[in-house]
């Protein structure tokens, strides 16, 4: 297991190192490149953050009017708030009203850095009131699209198997069949075991395709960075944690609380380490997916950003092919990270349900 994680972590470090070098470079250049055609400095960090963070509306593009004002072309998304027992549902476009303050019932809401806060009549943030934000954000909307696509694909190929029973696969069916067979024969069975994999295989398949589809949707320009959001990866990792520990048998717990062959004084150290281990495994899953996808998006955005920093479209000549290469790499990473997440989940489940071999 350690051998599996190490190269991936290294890869992340490499990406992050590269990223930080790039960002420091941009930080220097933005200082000098301030003041463009629209008189506003181009802030690369803001641009990247805007693209990789969640948003309450789906922004497509911005036009600049004759008088220099910006027109944002975006799809408003529903905002769902729960504040002290009060549910408020409205479209995010309401935030574009004057002062950006939306009054619903007893509360006045305002969007601050894509974070919904409650303000008083003067527009001061009331930090003691915490509205819970269940909005259909850009990430949620993208996730819903990915899920609909997955349902569409799933039902379509399941129908094809029924309709073409016993025949060779065709079309979409023949694209997904090798993947499903691979996941079964080389991921689920070797890690969980021939007899126990059946119970977990539907979950693993859903997990793999859910992550993969979200990764792919995130690569589409204007797409959301859903699978690169820590909340997304945290949820999936938490589900892995739950499934692993709920299905764990007595051998698993015995290994944690009374590892066979270990002297009792050593157990005093081993037990806390093992308990920490229960949580570090899914945390590693969470960080790996989040960091890989976010880093990929950031690199692409940073590369594109170079053109805007220097305000020179000639730079597009070397940068566009480079971005294209990065996109190809990201397509691969999208598949690879979905695979790794699923593989490690299968591995953890396998460890939890394994029969005692000692």
């Amino acid at each position, binding site marked *: 297991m350690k051998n599996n994680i190490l190269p991936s972590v290294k890869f992340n470090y490499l990406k992050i190192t590269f990223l930080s070098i790039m960002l420091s470079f941009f930080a220097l250049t933005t200082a000098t490149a301030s003041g463009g055609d629209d008189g506003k400095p181009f802030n690369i960090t803001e641009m990247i*953050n805007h693209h*990789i*963070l*969640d948003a309450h509306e789906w922004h497509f593009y911005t036009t600049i009017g004759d008088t220099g004002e910006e027109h944002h072309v975006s799809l408003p998304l529903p905002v*769902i708030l729960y504040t002290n027992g009060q549910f408020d549902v409205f479209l995010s476009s309401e935030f574009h009203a004057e002062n950006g303050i939306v009054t619903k019932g007893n509360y006045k809401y305002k969007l601050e*850095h*894509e*974070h919904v806060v409650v303000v008083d009549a003067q527009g001061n943030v009331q930090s003691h009131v915490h509205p*819970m*934000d*269940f*909005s*259909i*954000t850009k*990430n*949620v909307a993208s*996730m*819903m699209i990915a*899920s609909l696509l*997955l*349902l569409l694909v*799933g*039902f379509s*190929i*399941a129908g094809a*198997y*029924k309709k073409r*029973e*016993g025949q060779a696969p065709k079309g979409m069916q023949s694209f997904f*069949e090798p993947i*499903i*067979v691979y996941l*079964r024969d080389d991921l689920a069975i070797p890690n969980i075991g021939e007899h126990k994999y059946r119970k977990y*295989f*539907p*979950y693993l*398949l*859903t*997990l793999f395709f*859910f992550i993969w589809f979200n990764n792919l949707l995130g690569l589409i320009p204007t797409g959301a960075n859903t699978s690169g*959001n*820590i*909340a*997304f990866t*945290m*949820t*999936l990792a938490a*589900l892995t944690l739950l499934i692993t520990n709920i299905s764990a048998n007595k051998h698993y717990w015995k290994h944690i609380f009374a590892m066979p062959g270990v002297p009792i004084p050593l157990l005093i150290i081993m037990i806390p380490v093992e308990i920490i281990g229960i949580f570090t495994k899914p945390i590693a899953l969470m960080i790996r997916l*989040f960091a890989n996808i*976010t880093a990929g998006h950031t690199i692409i955005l940073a590369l594109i950003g170079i053109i805007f920093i220097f305000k020179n479209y000639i730079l597009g000549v070397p940068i566009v092919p480079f971005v294209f290469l990065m996109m190809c790499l990201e397509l691969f990473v999208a598949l690879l990270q979905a695979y790794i997440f699923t593989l490690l989940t299968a591995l953890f489940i396998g460890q939890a349900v394994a029969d005692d071999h000692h």
Partner: protein
Amino acid sequence: MLLQLNPLITPNVGLIFWTALIFILLVVVLGKFVWPSITKALSDRERSIEEALKAAEAARMAKADLENEIEKIRQEGRVEREQMMKETRQVAAKMEEDARENATKEYNRILEDAKREIDSQKNNAMADVRKQVATLSLQIAERLVKEQLGSESAQKQLVETYLNDIKVN
């Protein structure tokens, strides 16, 4: 506090809720309607392919067996035919031999018969000739005797001559 400062690593409750809800719904729906039918179809097809392969293997074996049988029968037929031809050839040769032998025997017998016949005919002819010669000689002698042995001396001389001739013979 540090976590809250960086929005990148601050998980949003709403997104956690929606991710969990959507993902669990997907697991339930896909796990109930999609994956089982696919995995079942796949394992069914794998089983049917395996069975078909086994059947094909069995058919191949049966065919090979049958071919071996046919080859064996053909081989036997060939051997038998050869045997028969050999025998036939031997019989023919023997018949030829016999025929030749019989013919030779018959020939020899006929030859012998012919020889014997010829000999007997020859002997008969010789006897006949001798008889006729004797008769003729007697007639001639009679006539001669009648003509020449009118005198005593002539008679004596003749007897003398005969006697001499007999001696010579």
